[in-house]
């Protein structure tokens, strides 16, 4: 989870990602971020997030993103 927060903090140093639960709904992540974010997660966690999993629900909080990474990793 630390690595994920590091990736996110490079995109938005001002956000407290551990507490934030409206990354999408609150407009924190935007279209400028998404490709970078997915590419870096794929590299860091050695996964390949499939396009159909890139949804608002899976990216609204660090917890949701971690659950997604775990799910893909275990599949």
């Amino acid at each position, binding site marked *: 989870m630390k690595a994920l927060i*590091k990736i996110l*903090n*490079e995109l938005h*140093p*001002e956000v407290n990602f551990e507490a934030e639960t409206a990354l*999408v709904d609150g*407009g924190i*992540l*935007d*279209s*400028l*971020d*998404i*490709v970078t974010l*997915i590419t870096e997660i794929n590299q860091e966690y050695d996964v390949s997030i*499939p*396009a*159909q999993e*890139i*949804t*608002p629900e899976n*990216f609204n909080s660090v917890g949701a993103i971690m659950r997604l990474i775990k799910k893909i990793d275990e599949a």
Partner: protein
Amino acid sequence: MLTNILQYLEATAARLPDKIAFSDGCDSLTFAELQKAAKSIGSRLAARGFRREPVMIMMDRHPNVLSAFFGVVYAGCFYVPVDTEMPELRLRTTFNSLAPRIIISDRSNYQKAARLGQAEVLLFDGMRGFPPDEKLLSQIRENQIDTDPIYIVFTSGSTGVPKGVAACHRSVIDYTESFCEALGLSEDCVFGNQTPLHFDAPLKEIMTTIKYGATTYLIPKKLFLFPVPLVEHLNEHKINTICWVVSALCTISALGALDIARPRYLKKIAFGSEVFPVKQFNIWRDALPDAEFYNLYGPTECTGMSCWYKVEGRVPEGGTIPIGRPFRNTRIMLIDENGKEAAPGEPGEIYIAGTCVTLGYYNNPGKTDEAFVQNPLNRSYREIVYKTGDIARLNERGELVFISRRDSQIKHMGHRIELGEIEAAADSHERVARSCCLYDSENKKIVMYYTGEAGQGELLAYLKDYLPRYMLPAVIKKLDSLPLTPNGKLDRQALKKLYKDSENEGTHKNLK
């Protein structure tokens, strides 16, 4: 004789009153509703005595914005749409250079609009029911000429102050006619608009829609984060034509969405503002082998797009997509460093001539005179052309190929940015001595180096108050001194090398 863009709207509203003109998927406006709302807004503005002056529009992305635009034109004024997400300090700079007497806002932007300065703020909701005053509107129309401005849109300025480009009926009509002809557009077009309404880019959809009676869906911004729902949205509304920035198309292809979701109705895909990475282009081409792909090129100063190129087949690895040829009634000249026409195949700066050349920068004669100049090849009569700062050459087939910029203007995520504007914002921090920006085009990152006492996080937070999101540096590095050339100028080449070296060492990520 076609002299006013409202003639498009009026002819279409009479022919197809109940067809949907603009929709965001939830709220829609038919052509009759659009015309009625526009006339109400025009009448309200005219009744208040506003004439031939800027009307600032501060509204979130919604079909109502189009009613406001055309309403302003009905009043014989010109609309100035601004980015409602812009930091207030930059918004104020824009406001000050415009000095408008009147702002139209929606409810969510009302407070922000009221804080800007000495201008009356009218709520859109309070205007759209105003009874249309046909007599007054026709009086205004009789006095309008086709060189009257329709809009002003703001573009990044190298000294830190955004420049407002003003365009008139004549150039917008010229652009609409030639653009529609080149791409073969018609009443059957269903557009999916991606570009923000505060730029000239959406003229492609807006003007085609009112000219032919086509339909435009304003795609919600948030959908551009989620490629599969985005493609599903295109299918749900049977969208067949898109004019998007390259980065929006790349989000879909790079994240693998085209493998699992196909835009079933898409027939025409126009893109521009940036170089399309060949690999991403070919993913699109393979997914939609029967669709038409168009590369567009053009500066805001020449109304919209000036050149087009239809891409046939795949693009070979390592190849580039030309920007092609000018639209009808537009002339492109390549001028070398001696002010002469560049020899065939040789690089030259793009100068653009024709009706498409806009009126210049509003309230800024100095900057206007620098860029809107007498045709260097014509000493015989007055012919104002636009000097783009873009360097291009002709290939063996006589097509234009973009090479580079002459200055430090960049294209980043579809936005045109002057690195100088970012530097000016940083330099205004009292504990920054001097700053310099680079663009890492490979990784699409804006990189800032600076000297001074300010911390990096502190500087970034400061910049956020001045600059829109897409202009913020992704990397900020503090140095003891900036490299200088023997003449004492900032040595950008040395900085580039420094950045490259640090990239290779993997030590560039200092925002942790």
